[in-house]
């Protein structure tokens, strides 16, 4: 019988022969098409950044707390004269670490947390209740004091991202699909950074502060995940780059 002469009734246990064969072929074709589409879509995803969140693997850190403009832990690198590392501090979820370390400015502490890092930029998600004061040995010489140097005024283009997701908690932690999340994080106190790219595609990450060196979180929300241009003074605090500019002067690029 031609399929067109057959009559299919779904509640009968068997489909007519030709109709059944056709349905089976369609099912096999759809299965193959689905698998091929899934593989192609997955392979076609944009490259993922080499970013890491050591979720669940907490370690101890000892250093000096700085709270302005953003909570940071200064950790002395091993060896005399080898300088300091600056770890940005954040709390669980979409929150900054102000509540965890806000009253410890300038103090030496031990804290537990999970490392978040991409390239040379590092951050710690601080475990609540783990911050406790310690006594650090006196520093031997002046070369071992934390350093600050001004690199000059630059005009930089890039995207404002929340440092926590971008550095590794989410991947990707950039672009429009991540805007809502980045906005929430920055609103919640996570330090905003400019992911700057030059014409050759080289990237730099700069912490954003206002002209007086203060936090800018609430003033950049509207520009998150867009391409922006910022002109300001770039400073290096040990291994951390900071871009100082009034958020009013940030320019959205169309």
């Amino acid at each position: 019988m031609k399929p067109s002469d057959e009559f299919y009734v779904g509640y009968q246990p068997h489909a007519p022969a030709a109709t059944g064969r056709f349905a089976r072929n369609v099912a096999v074709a759809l299965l193959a098409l689905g698998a091929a589409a899934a593989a192609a879509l997955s392979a076609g995803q944009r490259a993922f950044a080499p970013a890491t969140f050591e979720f669940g693997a907490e370690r101890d850190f000892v250093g000096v707390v700085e709270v302005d403009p953003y909570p940071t832990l200064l950790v002395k690198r091993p060896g005399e004269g080898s300088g300091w590392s600056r770890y940005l501090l954040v709390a669980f979820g979409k929150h900054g670490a102000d509540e965890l370390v806000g009253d410890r400015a300038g103090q030496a502490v031990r804290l537990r947390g999970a490392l978040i890092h991409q390239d040379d930029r590092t951050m710690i998600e601080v475990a609540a209740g783990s911050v406790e004061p310690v006594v650090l040995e006196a520093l031997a010489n002046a070369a071992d004091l934390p350093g600050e140097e001004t690199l000059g005024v630059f005009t930089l283009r890039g995207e404002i991202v929340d440092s926590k997701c971008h550095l590794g908690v989410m991947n990707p932690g950039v672009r429009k699909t991540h805007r809502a999340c980045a906005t929430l994080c920055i609103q919640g106190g996570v330090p905003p950074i400019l992911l700057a790219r030059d014409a050759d595609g080289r990237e730099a990450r700069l912490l954003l502060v206002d002209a007086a060196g203060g936090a800018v979180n609430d003033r950049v929300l509207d520009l998150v995940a867009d391409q922006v241009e910022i002109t300001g003074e770039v400073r290096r605090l040990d291994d951390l780059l900071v871009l100082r500019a009034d958020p009013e002067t940030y320019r959205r690029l169309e």
Partner: protein
Amino acid sequence: MGLEYRAVGWNRQKKLYDLTLAAAVAVYLAAFVGVGLALKPNATAETLLIRAFGTAAFALLHVILSIGPLCRLSPRFLPLLYNRRHLGVTMFFLGLAHAALSIVQFHLFGDVNPLVSVFTSNAHYGDVADFPFQPLGLAALVVLFLMAATSHDFWLHNLTAPTWKALHMGVYVAYGLLVMHVALGALQAERSPLYVVLVGAGLAWVLGLHLYAAGREAARDRAGVGPAAGEEVGDGFVDVCAVDEIPDARARVVCAAGERVAIYRYGGRLAAVSSVCQHQNGPLGEGRVIDGCITCPWHGYQYVPETGESPPPFTERVPTFPVRVRDGRVQLDPRPRPAGRPAGSCSVKGAP
């Protein structure tokens, strides 16, 4: 006899259908996540799962939207249609998994209620390219939920058929919302042209298939009326075709007075009923007479030809139309008979 048929919950065909569906979903998700883990070592599991669920739901929606027009083009696709409710419910759950993971990942653990945040955390509503895409996904999910929740025939009866059918046209609203959800979201963030090409091809396929099937249908409606198209032959009857043009147990569909009417021939008699099935508007005129009842090709609802009524205990009823035979030609009165006075049938020989 209809009762035992329609009450069948779980037969071999339905099981095969659901097993195939489950296998297809599993293969799709495994392929997406597997390829992702193999080729993108830096990708996080959450991102791969969010994307696997989202794209699986969207792909399945294309299959669902294709079944209707494909069945209009060839009855061979009917086995796909019979149980398509399960496709819809499966698609909803895939979309729900994607949405729930997205909300946990992108909106939970902040200072704002996650569901509020879906609407407020990107506030560029006035901008075309920057327009927030996540509220569009949430709106689609609500529509899909309403359809999945009411997909059972229980709701078809309780909401009344017209309300139910209007609600289920919402699948097109959901599709439109999701195309925008993807176009304003993932397509802006991804770089590979594959994504734009696939979304565009999917849209072209869905639109093209619907237009093509509608065109074929309109042409068939016109042709169906026969050479003496709608010619008045007295007493309000119009000429349809020669008796022998209608095979036994089958119907001739004509478009009369703006409505499709199915004229069935069975065991030497003729009867005319509306070609629109009371269940889900299936094409009743493409059915067969089985065990003395007109049987819908979509889900097998049955109607007695002379009365248009489903055999007890069912209560569906389709309008009936008077037919008669003069000089070997079938003639139809395109005015439906009122409920209490069915049109009955006539002999193919011309006697009443």
